[in-house]
């Protein structure tokens, strides 16, 4: 019953979305406001409908309806209720419904907020969002249906179908397989929704961009309308990536947080184009330039969002042939291709109308540096895209699978990251318009010189690795430039008003959230970079098999194996848990409990590290293996991860600052103000 209700609400959503897209387009072209209004109503209907479908799935999951295939696949009796609810996005079919739910919610929010103001754009926003929604819903109702039930044929085979196939009887399992144990982690519960929020929110700026192209409103209006959407999308995507990293560090048991896995890269690619976009739209807002480029960037971001979902959902990564067999793969492929080609042709068609209002004054002007920044981000994107795609191409053409692993990405993107760090330091010192090399140099040289203190201090404290010294030098440089920028801002207010410096600083930041939020984000990146260089260049590891009481040393740390216990738990795990004592320079730091959980149902082991964290480093212990109790030996792998906690601290600052930048201002109505401001400046 519940399953039927959910299914039919999805079918209705599909119909409503298709009608909405069609009616909005027709109504806009033929100028029939009544039809557009009707399309809008159809669109407003989609969110309650998908909500109903999602609630039905959740009710089935929580109600232990294991006769539904999806429920049996992702939940089990042993799972707590909150995990059953979040199993909505734990499997393929459910996560596609969740995606659709978010999209319908955002489409509704985008059109409800400023319907009157954005009247000319909104029909086309409806068209774009509803076509995307119809696509995702069609995947769900035709290929990956979460409401399919299990049936048993007379010869005992198990089949799944929505309605009872002839010659079958309903099957009522009493328990399910349960969610993949790797996903039963609090980080994994919130990580996918964050990524999806990020993915889906990028659809809205894209929709406005297409609307701007169709309606020939090619000024920066669409950018200003979607400025906050873009920031929010970027915020969630960043948060999703950081949470994913933390999850990997806590659960996957390989001593790191980022493995250049295609699934990670799938989420990273839209982040790259999104970040480039966030930077380059500022140039369009300020100088009326780069209009083509911004359009292209948002089109790319949208395509990469769909591509990312495709990569993780179609099975293409495990094998090209799995992709060809799954119906969902070619559908995705077709949809990405079609939307990309249509968007780019539309852009080509409007190319002439997107001419810049301004031209470049100098190679050292801030807009040029932003373009360089974009070039570097695109370079990283190409590396990522190619690295993910190449194994598929190789398999397709030569039949041979190859691995494109971390060393490739690290070597290829390393210099590009260094370039970005350098630009992050230089760009705030350059001015818009015509900046000469001399004037930029005049602002630059003192700070560059000052920042040399960082590598010098490191060198004298024993760091001799050239790469690390250069990296930390640039980090120091960016930090100094950014802090000086804050200082200049605070000083400007302080001199004029009788405000104390901290107050002046605070007011300055609050009144110019995007500017100073952006600079604080840069500081977050600086902190993260400290940690990334720390773990990339200075991580050490060792492994050894110890009898009870024996020790294993790594650097200043010593680990002593005390005991090991092995036991079954009520939720279907076999746990082997070791107790090890950790000391540094002979001083006892306490015990750690690395363990290995073995999930009986899924026959899957999971390695949970024991970690001793401090600001300067992590001591990270894995239980690799153990001998029968009688011999009481165990093998441990230990990692020393210097500065890794800067990654998480930087991440927190990064997210908080993005929130600050995206936070609504009361007097915000950038549209009119910027136009008047530009007019005033022009007159003066």
């Amino acid at each position: 019953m519940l399953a039927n209700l959910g299914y039919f609400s999805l079918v209705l959503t599909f119909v409503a979305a298709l009608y909405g897209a069609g009616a909005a387009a027709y109504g806009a072209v033929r100028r029939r406001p009544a039809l557009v209004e009707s399309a809008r109503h159809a669109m407003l209907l989609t969110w309650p409908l998908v909500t109903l479908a999602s609630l039905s799935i959740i009710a089935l999951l929580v109600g232990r309806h294991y006769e539904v295939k999806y429920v049996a696949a992702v939940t089990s009796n042993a799972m707590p209720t909150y995990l059953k609810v979040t199993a909505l996005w734990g499997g393929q079919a459910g996560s596609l419904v969740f995606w659709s739910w978010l999209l319908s919610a955002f489409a509704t929010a985008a059109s409800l907020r400023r319907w009157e103001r954005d009247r000319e754009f909104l029909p086309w926003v409806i068209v774009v969002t509803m076509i995307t929604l119809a696509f995702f819903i069609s995947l769900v109702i035709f290929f990956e249906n979460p409401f399919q039930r299990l049936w048993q044929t007379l010869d005992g085979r198990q089949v799944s179908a929505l309605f009872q196939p002839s010659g079958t009887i309903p099957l009522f399992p009493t328990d399910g397989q349960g969610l993949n144990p790797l996903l039963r982690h609090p980080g994994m519960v919130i990580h996918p929704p964050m990524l999806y929020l990020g993915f889906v929110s990028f659809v809205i700026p894209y929709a406005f961009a297409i609307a701007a192209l169709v309606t020939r409103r090619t000024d920066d209006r669409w950018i200003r309308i979607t400025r906050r959407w873009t920031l929010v999308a970027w915020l969630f995507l960043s948060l999703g990536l950081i949470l994913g990293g933390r999850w990997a560090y806590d659960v996957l048991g390989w001593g790191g947080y980022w493995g250049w896995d295609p699934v990670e890269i799938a989420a990273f690619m839209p982040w790259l184009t999104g970040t480039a976009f966030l930077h380059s739209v500022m140039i369009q807002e300020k100088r009326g330039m780069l209009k083509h480029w911004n359009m292209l960037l948002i089109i790319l971001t949208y395509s990469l969002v769909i591509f990312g979902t495709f990569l993780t959902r179609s099975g293409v990564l495990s094998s090209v042939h799995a992709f060809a067999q799954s119906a969902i793969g070619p559908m995705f492929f077709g949809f990405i291709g079609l939307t990309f080609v249509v968007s780019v042709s539309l852009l080509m068609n409007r190319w002439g109308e997107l001419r810049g209002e301004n031209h470049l004054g100098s190679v050292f002007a801030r807009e040029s540096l932003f373009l360089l920044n974009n070039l570097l981000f695109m370079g990283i994107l190409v590396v990522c895209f190619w690295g993910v795609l190449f194994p598929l191409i190789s398999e397709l053409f030569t039949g041979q699978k190859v691995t494109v692993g971390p060393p490739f990405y690290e070597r290829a993107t390393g210099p590009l990251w260094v370039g970005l760090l350098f630009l992050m330091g230089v760009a705030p010192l350059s001015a818009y318009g015509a900046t000469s090399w001399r004037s930029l140099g005049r602002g630059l040289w003192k700070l560059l010189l000052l920042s040399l203190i960082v590598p010098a201090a490191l060198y004298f404290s024993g760091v001799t690795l050239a790469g690390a010294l250069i990296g930390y030098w640039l980090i120091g440089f960016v930090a100094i430039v950014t802090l000086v920028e804050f200082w200049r801002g605070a000083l400007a207010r302080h001199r004029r008003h009788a405000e104390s410096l901290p107050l002046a600083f605070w007011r300055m930041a609050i009144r110019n959230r995007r500017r100073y939020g952006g600079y604080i984000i840069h500081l977050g990146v600086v902190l993260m970079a400290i940690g990334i260089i720390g773990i990339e260049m200075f991580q050490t590891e060792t492994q050894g098999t110890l009898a009870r009481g024996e020790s294993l040393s790594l650097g200043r740390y010593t680990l002593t194996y005390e005991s090991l216990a092995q036991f079954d738990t009520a939720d279907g795990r076999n746990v082997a848990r070791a107790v090890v004592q950790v000391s540094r320079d002979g001083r006892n730091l306490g015990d750690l409990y690395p363990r290995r959980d073995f999930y009986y149902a899924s026959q899957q082991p999971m390695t949970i590290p024991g970690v001793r964290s401090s600001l300067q480093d992590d001591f990270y212990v894995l239980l690799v293996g153990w001998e029968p109790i009688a011999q009481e030996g165990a093998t441990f792998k230990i990692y020393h991860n210097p500065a890794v906690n800067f990654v998480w601290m930087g991440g927190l600052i990064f997210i908080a600052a993005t929130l600050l930048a995206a936070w609504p201002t009361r007097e915000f109505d950038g549209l009119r103000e910027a136009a008047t401001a530009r007019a005033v400046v022009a007159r003066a």
Partner: protein
Amino acid sequence: MQRSLKVYLVLMAIAAPVLIASAAVQPPPPSDDEVNAIAHQLYCPVCENVPLDVCPTQACAQWRATIRDKLAQGWSEAQIKDYFVEQYGERVLATPPARGLNWLVYVLPPAAFLAGAFVLYRAFRSWGQNSEPLVPTAPDADGDPYVARLEEELRRRS
């Protein structure tokens, strides 16, 4: 997992006395770190994108045991890697060897980057030759006079 480990440990238990007995004439048995140093550069065909040194599956434990055996027999790192390539194909390597179609892996990204840089260079040149006067920059949308002044300061330095 535990079973594989047991198998492995039993194997080691059998091998250990042999190794110890021959210790007088042979170098000491390879350490875990030596095994991991090689395993870190290899990927098994089953576990996607998990390097062999940290992969917890049974198959990978057996591979590590193989590496240990080969090391004990005096094989070099290159020989061991070649052995795995011969057995399981080039996909066991962390990056594809640069020959045949694989060249594309290494050539395309730098080529694309250079092409992008060239386009950018051309754009800079063509913009630079444009002699129309610059349209003044719009101040921040929020219209904060201080930010405008900060930007002005940067410009005046020239």
